[in-house]
C-alpha cells in the first residue's frame, strides 16, 4: 500500500456574499496516496473546484477557508506562511485547469512559460532550462520542441495548449497534480489522447493525480479511487472498482443511472 502524502481533514470553504453565506465546501475529508489517481466527481456547483483551489490556497474572494487541515507530508498547508506556500505551488503540488487559453500567458512564448517554474523553483540557468523544456515537450507529445519553443499559445490548437500546460505542471516533478476538468473543453478524440498522456506520465513519475470531473466514463477509465461530492460534502469515498460494482450512496446510484451508455457491444 503506497504511502499517504495528502490528508484532507474537515475542510471548509465558505463564500461570504451580500445574500448570505454559501458553504461551497462543507467539511470534506479524504486521503491521497503516492502515485494514485483519485477522481473527485460531482455535478456543477457541488464544490469540487473550490475544494481543489482550497488545497493550494487559491480560493478567490469572497471565498475563505474557514477551517480544517490539509496535511501535506505531515505539514498543514492551511497554516504555513504564504512565502512557503509559493514554494510548494508549482513545485510539489501543481494544477491544470479547464481552459488552456486562460492558463497561458498570450504574450509569452510557450518555451519561456514552461521554463518559468524551472528557473523559479529549481534555479536552473537558461541553457539547462531550455534543454529540460524540450525534454518536457517531447514527453507531452509535442515533437520539434526546438522549433516550437518560440511559438505563442495562439499558434497551437486547444489540445496542444493543454499539453503545454501539462508540461508546465509536470516540469518540477510534483508529487501531486490536480487537474480540474482538464479536457472538458476539448473534442472527444483529443480528450482521450490528453488523458492517456497525462495519466501515463503520472504513472511514469509516480505523481499522484487528483482528477476533477463530472464525466463518469473518464472516472471508469482512469481512476483508482473515487470521491463523490454533492453540495459541499463527500457522500461516498471508495475504490473505483467498488463504486462501480456496488455504489452505496443513493446519490451515487442516481448519478450512475443518469449517465447515457454507449452500447457498442
Amino acid at each position, binding site marked *: 500500500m503506497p504511502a499517504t502524502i495528502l490528508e484532507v481533514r474537515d475542510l471548509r470553504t465558505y463564500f461570504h456574499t451580500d445574500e448570505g453565506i454559501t458553504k461551497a465546501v462543507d467539511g470534506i475529508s479524504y486521503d491521497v496516496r503516492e502515485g494514485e489517481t483519485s477522481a473527485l466527481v460531482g455535478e456543477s456547483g457541488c464544490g469540487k473546484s473550490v475544494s481543489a483551489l482550497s488545497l493550494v490556497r487559491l480560493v478567490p474572494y469572497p471565498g475563505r477557508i474557514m477551517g480544517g487541515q490539509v496535511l501535506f507530508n505531515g505539514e498543514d498547508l492551511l497554516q504555513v506562511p504564504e512565502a512557503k506556500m509559493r514554494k510548494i505551488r508549482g513545485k510539489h503540488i501543481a494544477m491544470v485547469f479547464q481552459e488552456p487559453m486562460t492558463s497561458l500567458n498570450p504574450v509569452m512564448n510557450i518555451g519561456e512559460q514552461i521554463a518559468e517554474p524551472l528557473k523559479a523553483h529549481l534555479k536552473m540557468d537558461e541553457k539547462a532550462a531550455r534543454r529540460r523544456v524540450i525534454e518536457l515537450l517531447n514527453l507531452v507529445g509535442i515533437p520539434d520542441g526546438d522549433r516550437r519553443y518560440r511559438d505563442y499559445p495562439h499558434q497551437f490548437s486547444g489540445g496542444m495548449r493543454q499539453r503545454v500546460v501539462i508540461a508546465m505542471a509536470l516540469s518540477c516533478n510534483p508529487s501531486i497534480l490536480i487537474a480540474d476538468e482538464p479536457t472538458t473543453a476539448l473534442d472527444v478524440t483529443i480528450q482521450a489522447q490528453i488523458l492517456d498522456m497525462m495519466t501515463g506520465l503520472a504513472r511514469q513519475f509516480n505523481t499522484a493525480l487528483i482528477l476533477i470531473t*463530472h464525466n463518469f466514463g473518464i472516472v471508469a477509465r482512469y481512476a483508482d479511487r473515487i470521491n463523490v461530492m454533492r453540495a459541499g460534502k463527500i457522500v461516498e469515498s471508495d475504490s473505483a472498482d467498488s463504486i462501480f460494482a456496488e455504489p452505496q450512496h443513493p446519490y451515487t446510484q442516481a448519478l*450512475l443511472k*443518469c449517465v*447515457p451508455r454507449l452500447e457498442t457491444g
Partner: protein
Amino acid sequence: MNDHLIEVRNLKMYFPILSGVLLPRKVGEIKAVDDVSFFIRRGETLGLVGESGSGKSTLGLCLLQLYRPTAGEVLYQGRNLGQIRGGDLRRARRKMQMIFQDPYGSLNPRMTAAGIITEPLQIHRLMPRRAYRKRVEELLTLVGLSPGQANRYPHEFSAGERQRIGMARALAVDPEFIVCDEPVSALDVCVQAQILQLLADLQSRLNLTYLFIAHDLAVVGSMSNRIAVMYLGRIIELGSREHVLRRAVHPYTRALLAAIPVPDRAIEKARKRAGHPVDVPSALRSPTGCGFRPNCPEADASCRNTAPTLEMVEPEHWVACWKAQ
C-alpha cells in the same frame, strides 16, 4: 409520395475569407458543409455526430434556411426551400423549429417566459391575442414547468428549466420537425437525462421528427434511430444505430467510439487503448482527397486523389471510405 420529410441534396455551405480593409478580396473559403446528401423520415430521429469543425451545427442551420446554402437543395415535404421567399418561407418555417445548446444565450433575458413563448405566435399570426395565455399555460405544462412561472425572467430559472422554455417556444407553433442542436451538452448528467426523456416523450405524443445534433455519441445513440457521422464538412458514415455503434466501418467512427470512455469499470479495464493520434482538422486547409487521410491509420496513396463518396456496405449502411469497398 414517400415518407421523407426532409431531403438534402448535394448541400454545400462555404464561407468566404476576406482580406483587406478598403477593397476586401476573397483569399480562401471555409468549406463548412461540403456536399452532403441524406434524408430524414417522418417520425424518426436522425442523430448527427461530429467534433468541432465537422459542420454539424452549420448543417442544422442550413436545413432551416438560417444560412442560405452556397449550393445544393433542402426539400421539405418535397418542396425546395431554396426557391421560396417571404411569406411562403415564413409559412414553411412554421413547421420547422430549433432548440439551441446554450440555455443562457438562447433566451432573451429581457423577456418573460410567457413573452418568449408567445413571440413565435405573434410572428406567425396563429391565434388572437386573447388566446395566448391559455396556449402558454398548455405549453409550460407540456414541458414540465408550472404555468405559475410564466411571468418570470430567464435568470430566475435553472439551466434545465431554461431548456424547457426553449422547447416550449419551439413547440408553440405546432411544428413537425425540430433541429435539436446540442440540447443537453451544457447540462449536468441528471438534468440531461430528464431533458432527453422529455424530448422522447414529446416526440411520441406530438409525432415529431428530429435532427439531433451532438458531439456525444452516447447521447446521440440513446436518442436516434439512425446516425450520421460528420467529419470536415462531409458525412463519412450513415446507418442505423446498430450499424454505427456496433458495426462501424469508417476509421474515424471507430476512433471516435474508442475514444469515448464508458462509465463501466469492467469494460474500460478490458479495452485496448485508442492507438492512433488524431489531430483536429482545419476546415480552412482541408487535405486533398479524403479529409481524414492525415489521421487515418489505414490511409494510402489512393486516398490522396479524390474524396470518397458514400457507398453502401450493407443494406441501409453507408460509408465514405476507399478502404471500405
